[in-house]
């Protein structure tokens, strides 16, 4: 069965600090997809990234970077030089390729507070 664990319920950092959000997943599939979503206070879900299980290259997009390590089943998300606008709830999610319904399962989310 698939499972996503975000152990950090809530994090507060001061603006301009770097912060890493942890995500650990469980799956029996060899092919799967991992996602990160941002949910700002307005409530909409913003897609940030998808990574497939065969691509362990780390990715950087501006101040955002993702570290995918299959050996530890982790897909961590780092925000560099955080800004107040980064304050949101961040969800990690998993989809198994063998799942014909293509459904994704979300972690419980990490609420990030960036303090000015």
């Amino acid at each position, binding site marked *: 069965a698939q499972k996503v664990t975000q152990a950090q319920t809530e994090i507060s950092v001061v603006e301009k600090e770097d912060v890493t959000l942890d995500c650990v997943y469980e799956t029996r599939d060899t092919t799967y*997809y991992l*996602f990160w979503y941002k949910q700002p206070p307005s*409530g*909409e*879900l913003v*897609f940030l*990234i*998808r990574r*497939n299980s065969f691509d362990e290259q780390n990715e950087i997009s501006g101040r955002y970077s993702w570290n995918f390590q299959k050996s530890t089943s982790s897909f961590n998300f780092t925000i560099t030089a955080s800004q107040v606008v980064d304050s949101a709830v961040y*969800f990690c999610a998993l989809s198994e390729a063998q799942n014909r*319904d*293509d*459904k*994704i*399962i*979300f*972690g*419980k*989310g990490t609420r990030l507070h960036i303090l000015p």
Partner: protein
Amino acid sequence: SAVISQKPSRDICQRGTSLTIQCQVDSQVTMMFWYRQQPGQSLTLIATANQGSEATYESGFVIDKFPISRPNLTFSTLTVSNMSPEDSSIYLCSVQAGRGGYTFGSGTRLTVV
């Protein structure tokens, strides 16, 4: 990527009544997904809706409580039936989008009084 129009954006309903939520997608999609997000919680998948077949419900969700329609490849509705205060949540629909991600509707914030 697909754009979803979801409505209503919010509603306050009396217990015992039903509310139907609509999602319209600007392109044809095979599957649509319905999620519930209870206050301060994560998203929980309610069901997957394929056009032309009955929706597939996740454990803990039943068709009598959450009937779903999927009349064509661009539209779906979710009804929350016989509502109680415990049904107060945000309900979201979702479809697969470009870049391999999933696009979500803006959500329906439901309060049952």
